[in-house]
């Protein structure tokens, strides 16, 4: 009996949520957005950069200029530590308890894919998830945030096999949706060039040590090794390669991985590494949007260094703002979706002019880079993936 009363009292302490507004997350004064992201675990750094120094950075700029149609933007994030189950619980909380208007920039293929069913069922827009699985394609309420793995793979394989005439490929990949979607895409695209993967070794999510996998891959003698990993294990792979003196292989990183972040961990083991970059160099590019991004970063977060993750978040914030502005003062979820779908030739100053079609993809390109003296140097122009 005492037990029951205690439990009920505890529950009551949680307090009742505020009465629902017409459109959840939209009041006269503010728009509430949220997302489940990584603030601990293997993607803690990228998660924080995408949200607090990316999306929030852009929203600070917008709020200082008066907001969107007079409404200020607020965000709330929960930590899922790159775990799909936590992401499901967090997303539920965001939608049902915090009543966010839309989900913005959640990260990681496994967590995002786990929440897809719920998001579609609840008709909540999920905007620009930072993940590469093609499973999000064709969903009514989801707008892809990153070049999808099959497009990335096509660009990478066509460039390496087609232009540079490389024949021997292998891959080291994370053993989940992120890694497996790339693996499947690689196999398919190599098949078009009448080639196949000589060896593929998997790495469990959350594990850092890859010495056994690298040893086995060396035995297959590939010319190119695709790295479909997150920064920690990828840096380990580079260091391991250096430790065993494996010189005659080219390490190539996939889009989500290609950032100076994992190079910093690998130190000089990263020289000569190449990859597909999805964003212009945030530190050196003089594209107008990137320059503005740097100015804003210096103004609001002077101690934070620019990187591709915060650029991605910044861009997500920018896209949302642009669409919400066009949707007008009577902002509903359906209106936002319609506004996004009618985006034509949007000039961000960061990426090429963007037109969003019925496939809901916001990014379809990348370009080739190689590491020289600790930074990625651009080698090609924007590659096309159609």
């Amino acid at each position, binding site marked *: 009996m005492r037990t029951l009363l205690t439990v009920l009292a*505890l529950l009551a302490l*949680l307090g009742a949520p505020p009465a629902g507004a017409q459109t959840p997350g939209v009041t006269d004064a503010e728009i509430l957005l949220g997302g489940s992201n990584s603030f601990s675990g293997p993607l803690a750094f990228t998660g924080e950069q995408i949200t607090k120094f990316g999306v929030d950075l852009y929203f600070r700029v917008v709020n200082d200029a008066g907001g969107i149609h007079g409404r200020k933007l607020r965000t709330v994030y929960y930590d899922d530590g790159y*775990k*799909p*189950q936590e992401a499901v619980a967090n997303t539920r909380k965001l939608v049902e308890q915090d009543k966010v208007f839309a989900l913005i920039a959640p990260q990681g293929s*496994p967590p995002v894919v786990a929440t897809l069913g*719920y998001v579609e069922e609840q008709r909540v827009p999920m905007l620009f998830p930072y993940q590469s699985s093609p499973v999000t394609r064709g969903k009514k309420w989801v707008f892809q945030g990153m070049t999808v793995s099959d497009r990335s793979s096509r660009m990478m394989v066509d460039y390496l096999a087609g232009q540079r005439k490389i024949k021997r490929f292998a891959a080291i990949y994370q053993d989940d949706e992120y890694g497996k979607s790339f693996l499947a895409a690689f196999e398919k695209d190599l098949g078009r060039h009448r080639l196949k993967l000589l060896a593929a070794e998997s790495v469990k999510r959350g594990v850092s040590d890859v010495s056994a996998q690298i040893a086995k891959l060396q035995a297959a003698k590939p010319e190119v090794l695709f790295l479909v990993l997150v920064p920690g294990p990828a840096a380990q792979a580079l260091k391991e390669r250096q430790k065993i003196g494996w010189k005659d292989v080219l390490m190539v990183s996939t889009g989500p991985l290609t950032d100076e972040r994992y190079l910093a961990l690998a130190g000089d083991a990263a020289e000569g590494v190449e990859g597909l970059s999805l964003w212009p160099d945030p530190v050196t590019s003089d594209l107008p949007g990137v320059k503005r991004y740097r100015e804003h970063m210096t103004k609001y977060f002077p101690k934070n260094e620019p990187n591709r993750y915060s650029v991605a978040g910044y861009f997500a914030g920018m896209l949302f703002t642009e669409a919400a502005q066009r949707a007008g003062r009577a902002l509903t979820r359906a209106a936002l979706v319609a506004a996004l779908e009618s985006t034509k030739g949007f000039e961000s100053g960061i990426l090429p002019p963007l037109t969003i079609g019925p496939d809901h993809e916001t990014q379809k390109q990348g370009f080739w880079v190689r590491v020289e003296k600790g930074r990625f140097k651009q080698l090609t122009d924007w590659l096309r993936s159609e």
Partner: protein
Amino acid sequence: MRWAAAGAGGVVLLCWPLLVPPYFVFLTSLIVVNAIVAIGLNLLSGYTNQLSFGHAGFFAVGAYVAAVLTLRAPALPVVATLALAGLATALVGLALGIPCLRLEGLYLAMATLAFGFVVVEAILNLDWLTRGNDGLAVPAARLGPLALGSDAAKYYLVLGVGALMVAAAVNIARTRTGRALLAIRESEIAAQASGVHLAAYKTLAFAVSAFYTGVAGGLFAFVVGFISPDAFDVFLSVDFVAMIIVGGLGSIPGSIVGAAVITLLYDWLAAFQNYRPLLFGLILIGCMLFMPGGIASRMAKWTHQAQ
């Protein structure tokens, strides 16, 4: 007076989905699920003093068995699915309990820790069945023609099963078995000397504890709707231990209160991201230093003082 209070409480419990928003109903279901685990863990640790740091493993087994059964054999009624989940987990518990008979205290804690890891790794590696790291979406439980898809439906399922399990536990505690288990906790040698068959009861405790946790795991799969191996890690086992420590070792009401406190704390602290484990740890330390008997012993002291 007591019966009136009990009746009122029962009415509130039954009408809960009508009184609070669905998210709260979901939380309450979670509390009951965790309470079942806590009761099961208490049977093992509180009564026979075999502390387990691997109960997340049992939880995972129950969850996955229930999920896979619902996917592969959808015609099975939910009660059967849960029973099978519990039984499968009990068998695993037996498999763990027998070799652990020789171990005690420290060594036992480490063996259960290792077990927890191994079980989850096994689930991960059986990815043709469990979809490995990507996780499994669990369809709604079926009770005859009804699909228990809404939060309220799941709540009633959990409440019903939970009530049964609590009643069973209370009964066990009252019977000879319960007394034997308590005797083992006080002193194994003395218990043995007074005729308690040590090995049988210790193994029984493992199996029953596993059964409870397995059923709770199955319920968990239905309530949350999605399971993946990395959620059943050692930190979950620690959470379960925290529940019985905070609530009070060896106490059934304590288990329920402990489960409620930890579950609610978890949800309430979500907005604080990085502070959550910090507060958890501080609570654990504080409990051990200042309230070694848990909330249950505190409450017992208060009622004694009131009398």
